[in-house]
């Protein structure tokens, strides 16, 4: 029973992780930007929710749209200021990675200065509740956040699969020149994709705010965690990101439950490292043009 319970908890968290990386993988797919600033954007979203919760008592679940919007706007700003020139080239270079790294430091420093590096978490009423199905115990926080993440991911997948603009996004990520030659305004697609990616980070942030405790500098750890998920599933693929997130989250939960919670994050770091060894080209190599 305990085994089953751990798996269920792992899956709930897995969907939250999947939401966290969905934006990262979308941005990489379209622009070939490995956005190391993604985790700090998630934390920014968490701060938006935190702030709304403290000031207005707004439930973090209800503040998902607000966090998404706020972070998307921040993303548009960053894109215009920093990434526009590089996004247009669709060549992934070390320089763009370092740019996102610098961006991460800037936001980290700013948040830490304004709000300090204390551990925070929003605590809506259900945060400490749980339901029991038979012997299985499921904390409501994990359950709700998992379900909401799943819903958002499904909406995203439907949008990418069936809408005109979604197909244009996928076409652009496959072959930018060809997309332009059938009349796609590639620069606009890049901007919107970046904004969507950031909105996903923001909405993940709102959910993270009551599932994990967060503080600005925590994003360094999350960089490696999120990277391991996308690298496992294949960079740029949404399905891959979801699968990667679920698999690693469950493994990590198992390690945490049956070995030692202290080592559960090690699963992500080791996975990231090992995948890069087994696939020397990196799963990044799959989608070069």
């Amino acid at each position, binding site marked *: 029973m305990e085994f089953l319970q751990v798996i269920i908890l792992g899956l709930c968290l897995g969907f939250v992780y999947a939401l966290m990386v969905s934006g990262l993988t979308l941005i990489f797919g379209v622009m070939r930007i490995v956005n190391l600033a993604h985790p700090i954007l998630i934390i920014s979203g968490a701060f938006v929710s935190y702030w709304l919760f403290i000031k207005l008592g707004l439930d973090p679940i209800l503040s998902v749209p607000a966090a998404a919007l706020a972070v998307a706007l921040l993303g548009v700003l960053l894109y215009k200021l920093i990434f526009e020139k590089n996004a247009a080239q669709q060549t992934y270079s070390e320089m763009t990675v370092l740019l996102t790294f610098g961006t991460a430091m800037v936001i980290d420093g700013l948040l830490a200065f304004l709000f300090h590096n204390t551990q925070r978490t929003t605590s809506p009423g259900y945060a400490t509740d749980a339901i029991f199905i038979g012997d299985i115990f499921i904390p409501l926080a994990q359950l709700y956040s998992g379900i909401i993440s799943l819903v958002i991911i499904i909406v995203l997948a439907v949008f990418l699969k069936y809408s*005109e603009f979604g*197909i*244009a996004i*996928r*076409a652009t990520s*496959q*072959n930018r*020149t*060809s*997309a*332009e*030659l*059938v*009349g*796609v*305004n*590639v*620069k606009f697609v890049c901007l919107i994709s970046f904004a969507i990616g950031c909105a996903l980070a923001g909405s993940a942030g709102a959910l993270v705010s009551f599932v994990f405790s967060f503080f600005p500098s925590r994003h360094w750890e999350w960089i490696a965690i999120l990277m391991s998920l996308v690298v496992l599933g294949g960079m740029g693929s949404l399905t891959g990101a979801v699968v990667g997130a679920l698999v690693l989250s469950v493994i990590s939960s198992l390690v945490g439950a049956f070995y030692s919670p202290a080592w559960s994050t090690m699963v992500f770091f080791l996975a990231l490292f090992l995948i890069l060894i087994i696939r020397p080209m990196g799963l990044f190599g799959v989608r070069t043009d």
Partner: protein
Amino acid sequence: MTSLLSIRNVTAGYGYGPDIVHDFSLSLNESEVKCIIGPNGAGKSTLLKAVAGILKPRSGEIIFEGENITGKEAYQIMRLGICFLPQERAIFPNLTVAENLRMCAYSIKDKELAESRIEAAFEMFPVLGERLKQIAGTMSGGQQQQLVYARAFTIKPKIILIDEPSLGLAPALVEQTFNHIKQIASSGIAVILVEQNAIKGLQTSGYGVVMDLGRLAFEKPANEVLQDQRLRELYLGKAIKK
């Protein structure tokens, strides 16, 4: 009479590199088919890229239907009615055939018109209709080629620029491809064709344009170019040895 497209004194090149196309001028009338031939490195592909907007010309003007389109974005030029089929097969390999066709019609804002154009493309290329759900990249070379040319009929541009359509194709496919090009030409779309296979290209075209070292060498009706002994030796080389 003003021509549909006129390229005036265009100079173009890549990055910080040297000029590839020098001071090049060419004009194209409605439903005209011109074939640009010339040795490797003559700047043929570069010229097409400059017209399509993928490469910004360094100087000169490109006038399309009386409008100066120099320096516009590629997607804007495309929406005005100039379609460019680049050397590499311009399909989206991981999209399905249906999605590829939807992308072809992306620039058509009128939904019904887009639907009907896609329908028309199926009539032209029935194979595509049978494989709507297939991932485009897994089709055979010939089928992918059909998908590329389906674009021309879906979009119905005024001009279509085709870069090296026969490059790297099996002989049977070359035949098929030139049939597609003839179909396009006969539907009243003007064509600029860049081709290594000079005979095939010229046979399909009304005019032959000879380009060398980035400059216009001369322009003549295609059959005259084919007849010209001197030219054969100079530019067509062994390809048409008797």
